[in-house]
C-alpha cells in the first residue's frame, strides 16, 4: 500500500493467478469531523480526474511508473500512477461497493443521515446503530457521507470506550457539551485581550470584517470585565498598557481605537503576544487572549516556548483568515494556549465566524476540567492538560492504565460553581483501535516536547518506542511489508490489468481555483486628486472674476 497523495492510495497486490480470488483488508483510522453540532464521516469511493500539467517525458526503454491514462510529465513525474482509466458514462456498473457500518456514537443522538446514498438504520439496544445501504451495491461514483447529531440536552454528557490489549487497558473519554446551555450558572468576570494583525495583507475585507466583529464583541462586555486591544504589524501598539476595567469611557476609547485600525506593514507576532502575556495573572478571572491573523509566521519554536513559560491560567484563541494562514502554527498555538483554533477560509465569512466565536468565549460550559485519578493505576493521559469545554466542541481524552476503577469522576468548574460527573465504567464493551488512538496522541505529545526544551534525541527515542510497539508511521518510522512466497513462475511474464473508476458526480471545478490576488486604488486616487485640483482652479477663476 502506497500513498500517492494525501488522499490517493495505491494498493499493489503481487500476483493474482488465473481464477484466483484475492481479498485485500485495509484498516485505517480517522478522526470524525465535528462541525456546527453534527458529526461527519466521509468514506471516499472515487478518485476524481486531476489536471496534469507539464510536458510528457518518455524514456524509451523504461516502463512508465504506473498504468494510468496519462503519461508521466516533467511537472508530475508520477502522473501515470494517479490517473486510473475513466469509464465512459452509461457503460454499466463498475467497482460496485457495498457498505455496512456499526456506529457507536457514545451519546444519545437525534438523527443519523446519509447525504448521498439511501440507507437503512437499525438501532441497537446498547445505544449503537447498524447502518447499511438500501441497495446491495452502488456504483463508486461519489463519496459516502454520514452525518449524525447529538440529541438536545442541557447538561454536558460524557462517554467512555475501552480496549483491553495485553495487560493494559486503553480508554477514550469523550465529553460532549450540551446543545442548549442553561443560563443559571453565574458568570466569571473576564479579561479579554484582542491581538489583531494589521499587516498589509489584512487590508480589504479581512480587516473591515474583523473590526466590525471586534466592535460588536466590545459592546457585549459587562462592567465586571476588563479589556485591551493590541495591534501588530512591524510595531506593537496597544490602546491600554494592561487590560482596563470596562467603563463607558474606556469602552468608547477601545471602540474608537478599533475603528481607527488600518492595515499596513509587516507581521511581527512574537512581541505582540509577549506584550499580551505581560499583564498580571489572576486565577479568579477568565483571562482570554484572542489572536487574529492571516500571517505566515516562521519563528514557531520561540512562540511555543513563550506560551509554555508564560501562559499560566490564561487561554489563547487563534483565528486564521484567508487562503494561506500557517494553520499548523495557529493550531499548535491554540493547543499550547489551551484555547481553540478557528479557520476562516472565505474572507466574506470573517464576521460571522468571529461573532460565533466571541459569543462562545463569553461562556465556556466548563473549565478547569480534571479527571479523578483514584482507582486508576499507572494512568497515562493525553492531552495532560484538559482544555475548557465550549459549546459545539467535544473534548476527547486518550487514557492508558493497568487497572481501571468501576466508576470514575470528572470534575470541573461551571461558572463559579464546582461541577462533577460520575461515569460508570463497568459495562463498557471492548472496542478495537483505541490503543492506536492513544499511541498517536502520545506521539504528538512527545513531538510537542521538542518545543518545550526536550532534547531531539530523547524525543526521537520516545517516539520510536511508541511507534514501533503500535506499528505507527511517524516522523521516524515507516511501514514495510515483506512477502517471501513466490506465487508466479519466474519464467512467465506478468500482465497488469488497470481498474477503471467512474467519473465523479458533480465534480466541483471552482474549488480547484483559489489563487490569491491583489490590487491598488492608487490610480483612482490620482484621478480623484487631479479632478479636485481642477475644480479648485475653476472656482478660483470664478472668484477672481467676482472681485
Amino acid at each position, binding site marked *: 500500500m502506497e500513498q500517492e497523495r494525501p488522499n490517493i492510495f495505491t494498493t499493489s497486490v503481487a500476483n493474482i493467478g488465473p481464477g484466483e480470488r484475492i481479498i485485500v483488508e485495509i484498516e485505517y483510522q480517522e478522526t470524525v469531523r465535528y462541525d456546527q453540532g453534527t458529526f461527519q464521516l466521509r468514506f471516499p469511493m472515487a478518485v476524481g480526474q486531476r489536471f496534469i500539467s507539464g510536458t510528457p517525458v518518455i524514456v524509451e526503454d523504461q516502463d512508465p511508473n504506473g498504468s494510468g491514462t496519462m503519461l508521466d510529465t516533467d511537472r508530475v513525474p508520477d502522473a501515470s500512477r494517479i490517473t486510473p482509466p475513466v469509464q465512459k458514462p452509461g457503460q454499466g456498473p463498475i467497482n460496485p461497493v457495498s457498505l455496512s457500518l456499526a456506529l457507536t456514537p457514545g451519546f444519545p443522538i437525534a438523527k443519523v443521515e446519509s447525504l448521498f446514498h439511501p440507507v437503512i438504520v437499525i438501532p441497537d439496544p446498547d445505544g449503537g446503530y447498524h447502518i447499511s445501504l438500501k441497495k446491495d451495491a452502488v456504483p463508486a461514483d461519489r463519496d459516502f457521507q454520514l452525518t449524525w447529531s447529538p440529541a438536545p440536552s442541557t447538561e454536558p454528557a460524557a462517554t467512555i470506550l475501552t480496549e483491553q490489549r495485553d495487560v493494559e487497558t486503553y480508554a477514550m473519554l469523550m465529553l460532549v457539551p450540551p446543545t442548549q446551555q442553561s443560563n443559571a450558572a453565574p458568570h466569571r468576570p473576564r479579561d479579554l485581550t484582542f491581538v489583531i494583525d494589521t499587516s498589509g495583507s489584512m487590508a480589504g475585507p479581512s480587516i473591515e470584517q474583523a473590526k466590525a466583529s471586534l466592535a460588536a464583541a466590545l459592546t457585549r462586555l459587562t462592567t465586571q470585565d476588563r479589556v485591551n486591544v493590541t495591534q501588530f504589524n512591524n510595531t506593537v501598539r496597544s490602546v491600554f498598557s494592561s487590560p482596563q476595567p470596562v467603563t463607558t469611557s474606556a469602552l468608547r476609547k477601545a471602540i474608537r481605537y478599533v475603528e481607527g485600525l488600518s492595515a499596513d506593514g509587516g507581521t511581527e507576532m512574537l512581541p505582540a503576544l509577549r506584550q499580551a502575556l505581560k499583564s498580571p495573572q489572576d486565577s479568579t478571572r477568565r483571562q482570554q487572549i484572542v489572536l487574529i491573523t492571516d500571517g505566515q509566521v516562521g519563528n514557531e519554536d520561540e512562540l511555543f516556548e513563550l506560551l509554555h513559560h508564560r501562559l499560566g491560567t490564561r487561554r489563547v484563541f487563534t483565528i486564521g483568515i484567508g487562503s494561506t494562514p500557517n494553520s499548523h502554527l495557529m493550531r499548535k498555538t491554540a493547543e499550547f494556549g489551551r484555547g481553540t483554533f478557528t479557520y476562516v477560509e472565505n474572507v466574506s465569512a470573517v464576521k460571522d465566524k468571529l461573532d460565533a466565536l466571541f459569543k462562545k468565549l463569553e461562556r465556556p460550559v466548563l473549565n478547569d476540567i480534571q479527571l479523578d485519578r483514584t482507582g486508576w493505576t499507572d494512568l497515562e493521559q493525553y492531552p495532560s492538560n484538559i482544555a475548557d469545554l465550549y459549546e459545539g466542541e467535544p473534548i476527547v481524552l486518550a487514557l492508558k492504565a493497568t487497572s481501571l476503577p468501576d466508576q470514575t469522576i470528572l470534575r470541573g468548574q461551571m461558572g463559579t460553581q464546582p461541577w462533577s460527573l460520575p461515569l460508570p465504567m463497568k459495562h463498557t464493551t471492548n472496542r478495537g483501535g483505541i490503543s492506536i488512538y492513544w499511541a498517536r496522541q502520545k506521539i504528538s505529545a512527545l513531538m510537542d516536547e521538542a518545543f518545550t526544551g526536550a532534547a531531539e534525541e530523547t524525543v526521537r527515542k520516545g517516539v520510536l518506542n511508541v511507534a514501533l510497539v503500535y506499528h505507527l508511521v511517524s516522523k521516524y518510522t515507516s511501514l514495510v511489508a515483506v512477502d517471501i512466497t513466490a506465487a508466479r513462475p519466474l519464467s512467465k511474464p506478468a500482465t497488469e490489468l488497470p481498474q477503471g473508476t467512474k467519473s465523479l458526480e458533480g465534480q466541483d471545478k471552482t474549488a480547484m481555483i483559489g489563487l490569491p490576488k491583489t490590487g491598488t486604488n492608487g490610480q483612482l486616487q490620482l484621478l480623484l486628486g487631479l479632478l479636485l485640483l481642477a475644480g479648485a482652479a475653476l472656482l*478660483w477663476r470664478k472668484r477672481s472674476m467676482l472681485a
Partner: protein
Amino acid sequence: MTRQRVRARVITLLVVTLVLLGLWQTGSGTWIYVKAKLAQVLLQRAWAVSLAGQRDVKPWPWADTWPVARLVVPSLGIDQIVLAGAHGRTLAFGPGQLESGSSA
C-alpha cells in the same frame, strides 16, 4: 458689497478645501507608485545579496518575504523578482511563489 465679500470668502474656503483634498489624494496615490519603484530597487539589491550566497534576505527590515527567483522574459519585456509566498502583501510588490507549489 458685503454680500459679495461673503461670497468671495466662501469660495476661497471651498478652494482651499478642494486644494487640500486634491493634494491629499494625489499624494497618497503617488505614494503607492513611489513605494513600488523604491521596492523594486530594494528587491534587486536583496536578490543580488541572495545570489552572493545568503538565504532568505529580507529586502527591508520589516518585510515578511524574500526573493526566491528572478523571472525574465526578454521578448515581453518582463524582468521581475519572484517573492516567497503569494499573499496580497507580496503580490503588491511582485510575483509570488505559492506555498502549495513545488519548492524545487
